[in-house]
């Protein structure tokens, strides 16, 4: 089944739409899917032109396609556990939060908290991701725990904060403090970043660009060869953050 959701024009286009209900399983049956526009609850058809093509008997056969002015739609794919969502343009905050399986493809940019506390599945963002890409919830000790987030462009600050498991791959640059509080999993940064891996206690972070203002609390621990984007790179290996228990590994291209 293919569900195509095209945004309708809105009187106040900057008011965010809270759309945690946009997940494949909700379209399996003719559910009364509702979203919030600001503090008003709306029927999905009030905000979208909806086209449904073909049948499905399980959520993994459902593909949801979002087009139009989708950049302020929040929580698409939250708690998703099967199927696929394709966003033709940009997507709002919290896309793919807590998702445990399935696939989200974003052709444009993703706003902050992409894949927050994700458990499994795949998110691929072809543009840039804003802050807290693949990060945690406020106050929660564990961020992303499994699955894969891949960003072809850049990511903002606090990428992979509290990363605990799974793989995060940012092909472009990251902002300030990527992998801060990281505990497990792997983060790969194709480009540059600032102050990576503060307070890291576990996991592996690989940086193939420049690591600006690298913190003084990492211990150099040899070097190794590593492949990225079809090329071999010489990587300096560090262990830290010794301000904390220091069990993480950071590899930075030399």
């Amino acid at each position: 089944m293919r569900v195509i959701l095209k945004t309708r024009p809105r009187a106040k286009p900057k008011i965010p739409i809270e759309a945690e209900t946009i997940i494949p399983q909700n379209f399996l049956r003719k559910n009364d899917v509702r979203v919030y526009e600001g503090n008003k609850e709306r029927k999905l058809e009030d905000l979208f032109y909806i086209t449904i093509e073909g049948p499905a008997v399980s959520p993994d056969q459902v593909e949801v396609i979002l087009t139009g002015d989708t950049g302020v739609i929040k929580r698409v794919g939250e708690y998703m556990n099967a199927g696929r969502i394709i966003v033709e343009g940009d997507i709002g905050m919290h896309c793919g939060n807590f998702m445990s399986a399935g696939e989200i493809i974003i052709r444009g940019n993703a706003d902050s908290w992409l894949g927050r506390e994700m458990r499994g599945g795949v998110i691929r963002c072809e543009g840039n991701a804003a802050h807290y890409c693949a990060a945690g919830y406020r106050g929660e000790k564990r961020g992303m725990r499994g699955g894969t987030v891949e960003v072809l462009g850049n990511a903002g600050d606090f990428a992979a904060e509290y990363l605990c498991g799974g793989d995060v791959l940012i092909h472009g640059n990251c902002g300030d403090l990527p992998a801060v509080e990281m505990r497990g999993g792997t983060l790969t940064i194709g480009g540059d970043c600032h102050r990576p891996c503060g307070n890291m206690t576990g996991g592996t972070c690989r940086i193939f660009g420049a690591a600006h203002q690298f913190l003084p609390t990492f211990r150099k621990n040899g070097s190794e060869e590593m492949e990225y984007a079809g090329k071999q790179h010489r990587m300096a290996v560090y262990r830290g953050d010794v301000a904390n228990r220091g069990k993480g590994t950071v590899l930075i291209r030399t």
Partner: protein
Amino acid sequence: MKIEDVVCTFCGCLCDDLVVEVENNRVISVENGCTLANEKFMGDHRLKSPIRREGNGWKALSYDDAIRETAEILLDADRPLLYGWSGTHGEAQSVGVHLAELLGAVIDNTSTVCHGPSIMAIQEVGHPGCTLGQVKNRADVIVYWGANPIDAHPRHMSRYTTYADGFFVKEAFKERKVIVVDVRKTESSAVADEFVKVERGGDYAILSALRAIVRGKRDLIPKQVAGVTREQLFRVADICINAKFGAIFFGLGLTMSPGKYKNIRNAIELTEELNRHTKFTISPMRGHWNVYGSNEVFTWITGYPYAVDFARGIAFYNPGETTSVDILKRGECDACLVVASDPGAHFPRACAEHLARIPTVQIDPHVNATTHLATLQIPVAVTGIDAEGTAYRMDGVPIRTRKLFDGTYPSDFDILGKIYEQVKEVKGS
């Protein structure tokens, strides 16, 4: 008439030992107060009546009309923002939160541009703190980090730290060591035994280095970290480790610098590390006299200290998303109620511009920057002068502010209560 033990409603110190003389519904003298307190109590620049913007001018209107119009504006909005709250009493804040839940609004207080990052850090690692008297009576080491109390909290040093004699510290000035960490020299750094001048944006690295030193990893520390020599870092660490009772106070120098709450988190984790060696506490230097109260009230009603979004009926919290600066910057909100604060002066330009674009109602005793941006302003009594109510000091100690005379202005509580009733009438129970 002289009134003793008056509570000062300026900064988070909430000094409660002022002696104020009142004559004909005016304060005519203030004893024991700092400059800020004197200005606050002696100030007499109130907006006279509610005003409404009409075209390119302003017209006075009645309280009843102003209240009705405010209720209408809020009811019309799809994403109202209720901002401010730190300059009023807890009872009014409480009505504000209930108003927000009724409206499905976002409610946020001034922590958002003050110690919001401290709260975020506390939510990650907790907060080893204490009341200020604990510091006064026990502390032999004081650290001010990114804080300039002489300008922002003028009596902090004399009431609670540097110059405050206590039970176990009989001659504070002699027995206490004071360390100041800042990116620039200030009046406060001038009185320090040890001034640590940090490069801009270097606090996080310094804090990490200090944590590593306290953990016994001195060998790893390079000659210089963010402009501070290794020797000085070792010296500071040793002073802290050898303290009997140490107290860190930090200010906006940490909360507003790059990394924001991660700086505070690092400072808290340093404090926690020091507790493995001795007794250490850490406390934010809260700015507004009742900003901590707004955090407390918000928390017991909604579960969150600030930046609470009721759009979906339930309470949702996520600084960076539900915080005022972000909401205004993105142009999300379509109406704003400002209570007891001045975002026109204290928010970045782009945010203030959005306030001018939407219906903005301000409830405030004074003409301030936001007045010019607003569509409506309702003047109220000043808590601590002609209104009373609960305030929470920067360390969480609740103190009841006094009403010094019966003025003619209604209180924030009165006005908000009436707005709440009108909104409730429309919304059903």
